[in-house]
């Protein structure tokens, strides 16, 4: 079996709120993303430092784009998730409306990253694929903790989390057979 198949076999045994480590293969993330998105579009969010907001959409349009495109929620649910995300980012109520109506080009990098994280939170994915550098930046944020609590977090490389292939049911079966 290929490594992607190994990972796909192991994923159903993963628990939301837990952090798992993927083998540091460069192509694995892309393949995994395609496979998971193919099975259930929008069930996976990929967080990387290179991610950005779309400059021709207002912030609120950016925030709801993936959830709305993949039809994951109704408008009322989306509104409530947006409010939750902004609260978790400690954005004051007076600033929210101007922020949501603004274009991303006027925002600083820190704010853009927070909003990318908010976008993933609003998408409410089942799996979150994240690169270690992103995790270093986001791990202390309440919004990240809320996202990590509701999803299976898969870190690409690094030292954090439990190695995913260790939780593979096939691996468990093999171990049982050996014993």
């Amino acid at each position, binding site marked *: 079996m290929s490594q992607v198949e190994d990972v796909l076999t192991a994923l159903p045994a993963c628990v939301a709120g837990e952090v798992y480590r993927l083998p540091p293969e460069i192509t694995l993330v892309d393949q995994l*993303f395609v496979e998971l*998105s193919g099975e259930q*579009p*929008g069930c*996976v*969010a*990929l967080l*990387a430092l*290179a*991610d*950005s*907001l*779309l*400059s*021709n959409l207002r912030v609120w*349009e950016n925030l709801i*784009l*993936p959830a*709305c*495109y*993949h*039809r994951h929620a109704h408008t009322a649910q989306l509104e409530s998730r947006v409010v939750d995300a902004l609260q978790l980012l400690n954005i004051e109520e007076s600033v929210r409306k101007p922020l949501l109506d603004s274009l991303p080009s006027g925002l600083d990098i820190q704010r853009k990253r927070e909003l990318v994280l908010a*976008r993933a939170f609003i*998408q409410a994915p089942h799996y979150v694929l994240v690169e270690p550098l992103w995790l270093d930046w986001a791990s202390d944020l309440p919004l990240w903790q809320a996202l990590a609590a509701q999803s299976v977090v898969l870190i690409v490389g690094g030292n954090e989390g439990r190695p995913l292939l260790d939780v593979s049911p096939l691996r468990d079966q093999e171990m049982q057979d050996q014993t």
Partner: protein
Amino acid sequence: MSSDCARLCLIQLLPYFIFLMPDLLRRPAFLSALADLRRWPVRRVLLKQIYFTGVEALLMMLIVGFVLGGIVVSQLHDQYGQSREASLRLLASLTFSELSPLFTALILVARSSSAVASELAAMKVHGELSSLARMGIPLASYLIVPRLVGMTISAAALALYLALAALLGGVVLSSGWDITYQVVLLDRIMQPSMLIVCVCKGALFGFIAVVLACWVGLSAQPYVTEIPKASSRAVMRGLLAVFLLDFGWSLLA
């Protein structure tokens, strides 16, 4: 002979279609991208495109059409000694079949093709295309198809408006503000086939212009200096394609 020339022109244009976004040329992918117009974010992009290309350019098109109609009628009547009725007849025939779709395409290429190409090139430079892919949103569905459909619809509608405005300009110039007789005359001048040709040609030219703009924008290198180049390339290639297509159409017709 003429149909051979037309075929040659169309053959010259073929590479543009063949190399353009292979996704769109594959039937299932294209159909699924079209079906994605049901999704709200995609429909929003479509409506924005129609607004920016069609609605915002409408006033300018009406003014251009009105002035164009006046110029053509004054030339035919004053310079070439045509009667007012004959001038209007010629104006209608010329505008609906030729001038209106061509002028519409020229204005759209200058105005919207450059905007589409530079917008897509800028998105590529800033990594936004990768971000879309990472959200599981296909570029063809979200970026290309709404622009293709929006600009094609806008071009068809604008060509028709421009032709009608030109006719109005011609009528006003040939008879002053008492246009009762000319309005009655329009019933005899206008034919459904003229309207159909005008709309089809406008749509075709708009489609080609936006296809090239998308292609140029998406194939730009990811450097900031490529954005204005993409914009300029979209205009030049759009103009060339529109003139070649119009030439081919004339030969075939």
